[in-house]
């Protein structure tokens, strides 16, 4: 008798009830694991970008102070000298360099700015 009942139960179970649609979980998981992970990733990215922006901000280098005017020699004059005599050009260049080129010893010089970096 018990066996007959079990057989009939097995027969009934061979009919599978229709599956309902999946549970609409999206609307009820606003604070679900995926959203928490996404928020954490976004916060980390914002932090890293902010840190990089602050750390690598451009250094404001003041323009080198203008050298006091002294016997100046123009590029055109130097060109002409160079065409006439190379040796004379070297001599004139050595003389003019300390005057034409910016001072490399001052606090706002290019070398000082590079040394800071």
């Amino acid at each position: 008798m018990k066996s007959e009942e079990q057989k009939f139960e097995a027969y009934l179970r061979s009919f599978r009830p229709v599956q309902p649609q999946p549970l609409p979980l999206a609307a009820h998981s606003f604070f679900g694991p995926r959203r928490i992970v996404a928020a954490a990733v976004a916060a980390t990215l914002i932090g890293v970008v902010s840190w990089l922006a602050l750390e690598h901000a451009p250094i404001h280098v003041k323009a080198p102070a203008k050298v006091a005017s002294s016997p100046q020699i123009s590029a055109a004059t130097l060109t002409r000298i160079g065409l006439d005599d190379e040796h004379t050009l070297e001599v004139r260049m050595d003389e003019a360099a300390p005057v034409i080129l910016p001072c490399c010893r001052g606090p706002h010089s290019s070398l000082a700015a590079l040394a800071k970096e």
Partner: protein
Amino acid sequence: MSSISREPANDWDDALPAQPLSIDEIRRLYGRHSPALLLYARTYAADAGAADVVHRVFLKLLSGNYVITGDAAAYLYRSVRNEAMNDRRRRSREVPFVQEARWFSSDGRADGDEEGLALEQAIAELPDEQRDAVVMRVWSEMTFEQVAEATGVSVNTAASRYRYGLEKLRERLGAGGKCSRKASDEK
């Protein structure tokens, strides 16, 4: 009376923790019981409302505002029944009660829809209390204790309702033919 409460309803419920279920636990319950719950809802609600009824019950659990006291499967069946009855009352004022959707999947069955339709008809003709016991026991594989808790009767009453229901189904399905043939096929 609603079965949902924040406090244990009786001494029996005290044995179980009354706290909201996790999403994983709700998913597991849905995976295990939703087909049988949908079948159960279809015996009370119109086609259009049955799936909504099952979803509403689970969405309430997901909201975290409801806790299960006592057995989870028993709670689900009580809740689906309450929701289905409400749905049926609401719809009866709007449209006639219609049942057209199939209750059972014909996937993998050589006999197709014919036997499934006969079974639907036989289940629909059972008295409510017998049908409840059969659906819970056969398709949710609940114990008689769980069936008793879900229907608010003693274990003996739940068991006898089930056996009466099963016997009627056998008679109506002509179990001497189809069922015996299947049993002999299995051998």
